[in-house]
Structure formats: structure tokens, C-alpha cells
């Protein structure tokens, strides 16, 4: 009888994939790198923080296998667990850059960001995504979603960045968990108690139809291992995160003003031929096209007057207001958007793919230039879109396209400077902002930086809102305010004196000057990655202490 892979725990899964008993676990349980943030909140930690990293071979090819333990805290990514993945992938990247081929294999079983460490999860996931984009230049990054938890949240965005995804029919893959969609959008949008609906929408069998995963295999150690090996040997890559034109033309052909049936979507998908889609055109007009903090800052930073985009929620424009010519990007609300879950400035399907399209256009335009234009990202995104259509089509793929495009530009030498002028939440932030080389933030109490609304976090973690707020007093990463966010070391510059979100001359000048500094800093250090996030002074002292510990440990053990 076949030996189930799904049944195994993370460590067993890793060992099952590797050629017999040749694995060497790195930063394992005996290193006792536990999550202090969990202990501080009265939650039992695990000695490996839910991540198993092993070096070894598959089919005699060198691999690093990384697996999430789904039964520990839903496989959520916190600081330590995130840092283990980041450190492992960093080493894998270095090895490949040095001509030593090593394949990263990632076994996903995760709800995404670990809500008890929220912002650490978001930071880590963006850094993991960046490394995957970099690694794909050398080797395919293979993802396996065996099932139990499946792959959700920010880690689904990560999954869409991977070259090739293998699952069993026991897996589910989606951005927002059913309970969160229900909480945010109501039970009529998505009934989280309706198992048929859930599995028919985001279960792996449908996900193959929807081209969101690449291969469905039977649940056995043998079949998963041979699928992984084949993907490695054949260097399989579906280029899922470079697919904007395909999806934009597809979305154009669909009526998404109401829930689509699964059959009609599948049919549309089969029949669809990718077409190139025109870029959005932004023109000035007499009256503002919308009202939002992000829109105001887009105007202020580009100097455009009442700009109006042919894609009502997505803006970009050249600006001469900085020391160098830059391109400014923004996502804004459209209260009349036919995509009814994307009316308050959320990042939805169109927004993710459009941003990717725009960025790819810039990439191509600058491809042969010695100096790549900086991108200034205006960040005011209240959340990703929570909706049924969004999950059916695969909003995480849209967000991954945007994140991948930002990462690609940065890695090609475009300084990406994010300016947090409004909310920076969850998947929206991962898609639009967190791939920035440097982040700058205003000090307004109206700004929230988080992974999930308090109401949803309360439902998922089974804690009351009062309990969550009390815990935030102890643990800055789960706070919602920008002052606490600054403590994590994630900001290049915290504009403490700007305590409102207005585009007053003083405010705008301060931001422009901070952006100029940031661009110069990136240029000076030739920095194309995100390491500055955890190597700066605040991060080393208090914000990312565990990340640095894990890095040091991994450095010690990788070559041991």
C-alpha cells in the first residue's frame, strides 16, 4: 500500500524527499531557536519554530529542502521561522551565484503570516519572495503543497512566485482563508461553513483547472518525490508570476460584477488566448478622479494636476520633482468599480496585474540603460480584495505578479522607494510596497501597518479584540500603529515630525528629500536586495534580533 506524504510531519516530509538518510538539518530543534514573541503571549513555542531546513540530495542533485510544520500554529510564518527560510535561501542563492548548483525545494503547509507576529511575517515573506525571484535566474524553485493546511495568505503569493507547484488533491491554495473572507465580506460572499463551495473553489483539483498549480499527484511519498525530481531535472517553470498580459486580457473578457460559476470560469480560461493589453493612460483633467490619501500624494509627488487613469485604480507617472527622474506608482479607490470587492483602494486582480504590466514596461524601457530609473511607491492600501471571484481566479497570482515585478526591477538596479502615507496592510502591502529597497513613513496616527483587521485576527486566533490589543502592548510586531512598526527596523526613514497625512508643502518637501536620500543610499551601496531591513541599527538592536541570530547560526552550520 502506498505511503502517504500528507500524513507525515515536516521533518518526516523532508527526510522522505531526500535520498536515503543523507540529510543534514540546519538550525534544528537542538539549537533552541524558539519564538520569543509566542512565549511573551503565552503560546507554547516549538524548538524549530515550525520550519525544518535540510541540506541533502534528491536524485544525487544537491538540494536544500525547507518544510513548514502545518500542525504547529497553522504553519504560520513568524520572525524565527521566516529568518530560517531567508537564511537558507540566501545561502542557496550565494552557492548558485558561485556556480555551485543547489535546488531549493519548499514544502508549503501554511496559513501565511503568523498572526501572533504579524508584521514580522509580512517582512519575512517579502524577503523570501525576493530571494525566490533572484534564485529563479539560476535554478527552478520547486514548491510542494501536500495538504492539511494547504497554502494561504502571504505564503500563497510566495507559492505563485515559485517556478513549479506540485500538490495532492488534499491541498487547498488561496490568498484569503474562507473564514477571513466571510468575516470581511459577509457570509453571502463566502460561506466558510460550506465545504463544497470551499473545495470546489480553492481545492487542488480545481486549482489545476485554474492553472494555479502545475501538477496534481497522488498522495504518496514515491509520486511526490518523482514529481519533484522531474521538475528539477527538466527545470520546469510555469512563469506564473510573469503572466500579466494573459490575465489582463482574460479579466477584460469576464463579467466580474457578480459571482462567476466555476464552470463558466474554467470554460473562459480554456478558450482564452493571451493578447497584449494597452498600458493605462494617465491624463490631467479639471476635477479630481477620486479622493484618497494615496491619490493626493501621487499628485503631489508627480506634480500632475487631477490625474485620471484609464484604469481607474492604478496610477503611474514620471516625476521631475526628485534629484533624478523617477516613476511614481499608486493604487487608489474607485467607489464605482464594477469589481465590487475593490472599491475602497484594495489591491485586487486588476491592480496586481496592472502594476506588474506597468513595471515590466519600465523594466524593458530601461533595460539597456546604464542608470535605471527609481520607482517611488505611494503606499496607501487598506487591504487586498476579499472576494469569491478574486479567490476563484487567483488573486494571489495577481499580487505575486506585482511583487515579482518590483523585485525584478530592484534586482536589475532600479531603486524602489516606498512611501507609507496611508495604510499598508497584508497582501496589498506585499504586492505594493514591501518589495521596496527602502521604506519611508509618515508619523500619522491614521496609518495602520498590519496583516489582518482586528476582527478577522480575533476570529482566526480565537482571541478577543481586547486580548489582541493587550498583547500588542508587549509585542510591537502585532501593533497596528506606525510608531511600533518603526521599532522593527523596517523603515529607512521615519518622518516623525509629519503627524498628518496632508500634502502640505512642508510635508511634501520632507518626503521628497527623504526619497532623494534613500535613492542615493541605494545607489551608493549598490543595494539590489532587502538585507538592509535587518542589518540597520534599529533592526540589529531590537527590531530583528532573532533574524540576525538565526542568520549567524545558519552561517555557522551551512558549511559545517
Amino acid at each position, binding site marked *: *500500500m502506498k*505511503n*502517504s506524504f500528507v*500524513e*507525515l510531519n515536516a521533518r518526516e516530509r523532508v527526510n522522505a524527499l531526500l535520498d536515503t538518510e543523507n540529510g543534514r538539518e540546519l538550525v534544528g530543534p537542538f539549537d533552541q531557536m524558539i519564538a520569543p514573541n509566542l512565549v511573551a503571549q503565552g503560546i507554547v513555542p516549538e524548538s524549530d519554530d515550525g520550519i525544518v531546513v535540510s541540506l541533502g540530495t534528491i536524485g544525487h542533485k544537491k538540494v536544500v529542502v525547507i518544510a513548514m510544520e502545518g500542525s504547529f500554529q497553522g504553519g504560520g510564518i513568524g520572525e524565527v521561522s521566516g529568518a530560517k527560510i531567508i537564511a537558507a535561501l540566501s545561502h542557496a542563492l550565494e552557492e548558485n551565484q558561485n556556480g555551485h548548483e543547489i535546488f531549493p525545494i519548499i514544502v508549503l503547509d501554511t496559513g501565511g503570516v503568523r498572526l501572533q507576529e504579524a508584521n514580522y511575517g509580512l517582512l519575512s515573506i517579502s524577503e523570501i519572495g525576493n530571494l525566490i525571484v533572484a534564485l529563479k535566474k539560476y535554478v527552478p524553485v520547486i514548491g510542494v503543497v501536500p495538504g492539511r493546511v494547504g497554502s494561504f495568505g502571504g505564503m500563497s503569493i510566495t507559492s505563485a512566485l515559485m517556478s513549479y507547484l506540485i500538490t495532492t*488533491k*488534499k491541498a487547498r491554495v488561496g490568498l484569503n482563508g474562507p473564514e477571513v473572507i466571510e468575516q470581511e465580506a459577509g457570509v453571502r460572499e463566502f460561506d466558510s461553513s460550506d*465545504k463544497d463551495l*470551499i*473545495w470546489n473553489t480553492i*481545492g*487542488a*483539483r480545481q486549482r489545476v483547472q485554474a492553472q494555479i498549480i502545475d501538477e496534481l499527484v497522488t498522495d504518496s511519498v514515491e509520486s511526490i518525490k518523482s514529481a519533484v525530481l522531474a521538475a528539477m531535472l527538466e527545470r520546469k517553470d510555469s512563469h506564473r508570476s510573469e503572466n500579466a498580459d494573459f490575465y489582463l486580457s482574460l479579466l477584460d473578457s469576464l463579467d466580474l460584477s457578480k459571482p462567476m460559476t466555476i464552470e463558466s470560469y474554467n470554460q473562459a480560461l480554456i478558450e482564452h488566448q493571451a493578447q497584449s493589453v494597452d498600458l493605462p493612460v494617465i491624463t490631467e483633467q479639471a476635477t479630481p478622479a477620486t479622493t484618497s490619501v494615496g491619490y493626493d500624494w501621487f499628485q503631489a509627488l508627480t506634480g500632475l494636476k487631477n490625474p485620471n487613469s484609464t484604469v481607474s485604480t492604478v496610477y503611474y507617472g514620471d516625476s521631475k520633482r526628485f534629484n533624478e527622474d523617477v516613476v511614481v506608482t499608486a493604487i487608489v479607490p474607485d467607489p464605482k468599480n464594477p469589481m465590487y470587492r475593490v472599491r475602497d483602494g484594495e489591491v485586487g486582480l486588476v491592480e496586481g496585474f496592472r502594476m506588474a504590466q506597468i513595471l515590466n514596461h519600465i523594466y524593458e524601457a530601461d533595460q539597456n540603460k546604464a542608470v535605471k530609473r527609481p520607482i517611488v511607491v505611494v503606499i496607501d492600501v487598506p487591504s487586498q480584495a476579499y472576494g469569491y471571484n478574486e479567490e476563484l481566479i487567483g488573486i494571489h497570482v495577481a499580487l505575486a505578479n506585482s511583487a515579482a515585478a518590483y523585485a525584478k526591477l530592484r534586482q536589475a538596479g532600479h531603486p524602489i522607494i516606498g512611501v507609507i502615507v496611508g495604510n499598508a496592510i497584508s497582501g496589498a502591502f506585499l504586492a505594493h510596497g514591501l518589495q521596496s529597497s527602502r521604506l519611508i513613513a509618515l508619523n500619522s496616527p491614521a496609518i495602520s501597518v498590519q496583516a489582518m483587521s482586528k476582527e478577522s485576527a480575533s476570529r482566526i486566533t480565537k482571541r478577543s479584540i481586547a486580548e489582541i490589543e493587550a498583547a500588542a502592548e508587549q509585542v510591537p510586531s502585532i501593533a497596528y500603529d506606525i510608531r511600533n512598526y518603526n521599532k522593527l527596523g523596517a523603515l529607512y526613514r521615519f518622518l516623525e515630525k509629519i503627524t498628518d497625512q496632508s500634502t502640505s508643502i512642508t510635508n511634501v518637501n520632507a518626503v521628497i528629500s527623504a526619497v532623494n536620500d534613500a535613492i542615493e543610499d541605494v545607489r551608493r551601496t549598490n543595494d539590489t536586495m532587502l538585507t538592509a531591513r535587518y542589518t540597520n541599527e534599529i533592526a540589529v538592536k531590537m527590531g530583528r534580533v532573532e533574524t540576525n541570530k538565526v542568520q549567524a547560526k545558519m552561517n555557522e552550520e551551512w558549511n559545517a
Partner: protein
Amino acid sequence: MEKPQRNWDTKRVQKAQRLAKISNLMTGKYVETNQIITVLEALIAPGDKVVLEGDNQKQASFLSQSLNLVNPKKVNHLHMIMSSISRPEHLDIFERKIASKIDFSYAGAQSVRVSQMIEDGKMKLGDIHTYLELYGRLFIDLIPNVVLVAADKADKAGNLYTGFNTEETPTIVEAAAFKDGIVIVQVNEVVDELPRIDIPAGWVDVVVPADKPYELEALFTRDPQNITELQILMAMMAIKGIYAEHGVQSLNHGIGFNTAAIELLLPTYGASLGLKGKIARNWVLNPHPTIIPAIESGWVESIHSFGGEVGMEKYIAARPDIFFVGQDGTMRSNRVLGQIAGQYAVDMFIGSTLQLDYDGNSSTVTRGRLSGFGGAPNMGHNPGGRRHSTPAWQSLRDQDNALGKGQKLVVQMVETYGANKKPIFVENLDALAVQKQAGLANAPVMIYSEDTTHIVTEEGIAYLYKATSKAQRQAAIAAIGGVTPLGMTSTKESLDQLRHAGIVKLPEDLGIKRSDAKRSLLAAQTIDDLVEWSDGLYEPPMKFRTWS
């Protein structure tokens, strides 16, 4: 000597009179579905002994619902005899004062209300019987006036097909048909030709097509997904330390995850011990889906079943070498014969329980719940008059006694702490309090200490039959009693002595490595795996569906 004059056929006359009242409603033996209440009111008299068929699985639900709708002024003070009290209306007829007295065996699904109604005097308790006592007494002093039963199909003449779910229907019908009782049958379907005749028309008085097929519960399906490593460890110990040790050939498994684990380990762990063909060949067993891998890999020679199991029909039909299948190709179950076989004809009974006292008496009755018994008391005891020559039976023989005889193996398998993190071992069984509350003659013990030969916990096996005194017996239970208050009374010294004497064995004594107790050892880990083993013949009901 002057012989008094009397009529010898009063019951027959009375039956004829009753049936005459509905002659205008009858076409042959048939009455219309919508006439059933009138029919019941005419045929059942106040004070009648009525058997209402509620088995473990099959329920005469149309007739029970209809009985609940009769006029209590016409029909009342019924003395109900039911093997299983399973449905709300089984109690509603007492609330409505249609019935007043009950004799039953099992009330798992209605145990709280049964307990309340007996306490409140709404239900007068005859007795709680083991199955065989109840069936037996249908022919002694609980002879029914009317029986209300269910069949799958009837033909025009009134012959019945009960098929897979024959269970106790023929026995109930027989008790009435040959003693001038009235037999009323609900049928799912009327057909021209039956697949086979399970009950002849001559035993049947009234047939009524039901509005809906009778209620049928899948009671014996355990999803392998929920089997834990502890259960696997205990199953390994049982296979090696009991099945192999005693050479158990014929047996019954109680229902539960513990026994499901054993069934799923036979083709893997059992095979690795080279036990195939040597143990567990002949079974009396409900058709547990978890037995499929053992059947498919050639472990099982025969299975006789008490009842059917939803979803197993096609699989069983395709395995007539194993199951009891009629010429028509469908299984016939028989609870009475199964119970007899389980009591008299097997080497071993093994099952779980909810409470064990310090002497090893076991009960599934807990506070406020008068659940009665399933088959366990019949299977789980050693009939004193039995004489058997199988190796397993003989292995328990007292060698010092010239007239000594063997014994049936009666094994209880429990984790020391239950799911609610409370000890399984208790000083006093809840059954005692329930006895007091309900005014029962006997405390509702399921299996008596004197019959229990082995107890298996996650810590080891206690071979209780080897204990020479009550104190030693208790020490043996304590030695495998974990950290329950009883277990904490066991010292290292006591354990060592008991191990030395072979009265207690730990996994290491059996050569079992605890780390091997993994789910990957199960021949099937999911319901899907069972379907695959069965070549797609097993069709799990919706509630066991695995989402994918």
C-alpha cells in the same frame, strides 16, 4: 379429576376479530400508506405487548412515527419491547401516554431521555437485557401481541426481502407469527418478484408501503483518519501479545478506533510477524469497512454479520467467499445467530469501554445516561458450560485442575485517560449511581471483572487470567494504569514482580518498539484508501466523505 372446559384458541379468535376490523381497508395483505394510523388503532389494544423494530442500524421509522400519531384514548398502556431505543418518537410515545412500560437492550442514542423518563415514572422499566436475553424472552414471557417491523421489499403475496439488514426481523416476526400475534410490516418497495424470500408471507399479516425508506445508520464505520499513534501502539501489543500469543482464530471485534486499528494493522504489522493464516481467520463481525484491507490481503476466511453497514453492500456482494451471501447475491445478516456465535463459538472478544473499576468491571453507562448494552455483554463473557478445544481457549486452562477447562478471551482495550483528560479507571462505576437513580435490579455493568481476561492500555497488557488473587489482579491493572490514581499506586517493584510472573507485559517485553507505532503502519489511512482497497466497491456514505 374433572377437567375444566376452556377454549384453547382465545388468542387466535382475538387476532381474527382485530383483523376483521380492518378487512375493508385491506387488499390482500396490503393497506394504504395513509391508512396506517387507523390500522394501528384497530389492531393494537391497550396493554398489548408490542415489539417495535429498532435495531442497531435499521429502524421501522414509518411505523414508529405512525404509532406516535395514534389516539392515546384508543391505544395506551402499551408494553414496548425494543432491542434498541434509537429515535425521538420511541420516547414520544411514552410522553403521549401511548406506551407505559419498556423492556430494552440498548439506548445509546436516547440515553439521557430514557434515564429521565424512567426517573420521572413516565416509563416503567421491565428490564435492561442483553440482546440474547431479550430475544429469548420473546418466546418465554415477553411474547408479543403485535410486532411492527421493517423490510426492504415485499411482493404482492406479502413475502418479504430484508436482505443485508435482516438483523433480528425474522426472530421478532417468528415470536408473533406462531403465537397468534399480529405482524405488521413497513416496506420500502413493492415488487413483482423478490430477490429472495427472507420471511414468508404466511408469517405476515399486514404490509404497508412506507412513505420513506426506513432509517438506516452507518454505525460501524470508523474513519482511519482519526486513528492515533496510541491506538496503533495498543493494536500492535494486542496482535503480538494476545492474538499471536494465544493463537486466536475466531473472534469478534467491538466497534471503535482501537479495534479498527487492529484490523488495519493485520495486513502490515501482522504480516511482518508472519501471522497471516495463523490468527484471526473466522469472524463474527458487523461489516466494518476497516476490515476490507485484511480481507483483500487474504487474512480473513469468513465473516458472519449481525447486521449490514451502509455503503458495504456492493463490496460484500462481490465477496461471497467471505460473507454470508444468498443466491440472489446479497448478504443476509442475522443478529440472533451472530450473538449466539459471538457468545459460544469464538475464541475471543475484544472491545473498548468508557469506565473500568479497580477490579476490572467495565461499564459504558455514565452519569445521567442509561445507555444499556450493545452486544458486548453477550460476547464479553465466558459461558460456564462451554467446552471448546481450540488452542486459544485451551491456553487459558488451569493446568493444575484435572477437570479444568479453558476460557474465552475477553479483552478490554482502553487508554488510561479518556478524551476529556479524565481517568478511565474509577473507584466506583457511574453504573452504581445510575442503578440507584433508575431503581434497577442490577447495576448496568457491561462486562464483569470475572470474565475479563486481559486489559490493554498504552502502557502494556495485563494478563488478568494469570492473577492468583484479587489483590494481584488489581496490582496488574495498576501497573498499566498510567498516572491515574489507580496507576500511581503501582511501584517499580510491583511492576517488576508482575513482569517477572508474566502477568504484565510492556511493549519492550513484547519486542515492540514504540517508535514504530506510526500511522504509516496502517493499511489504510483514509476512507479513500479503503475505497481503493475495495476496488471501488465500497461506497462510503456522505458523512464520511473526505473533502478534496
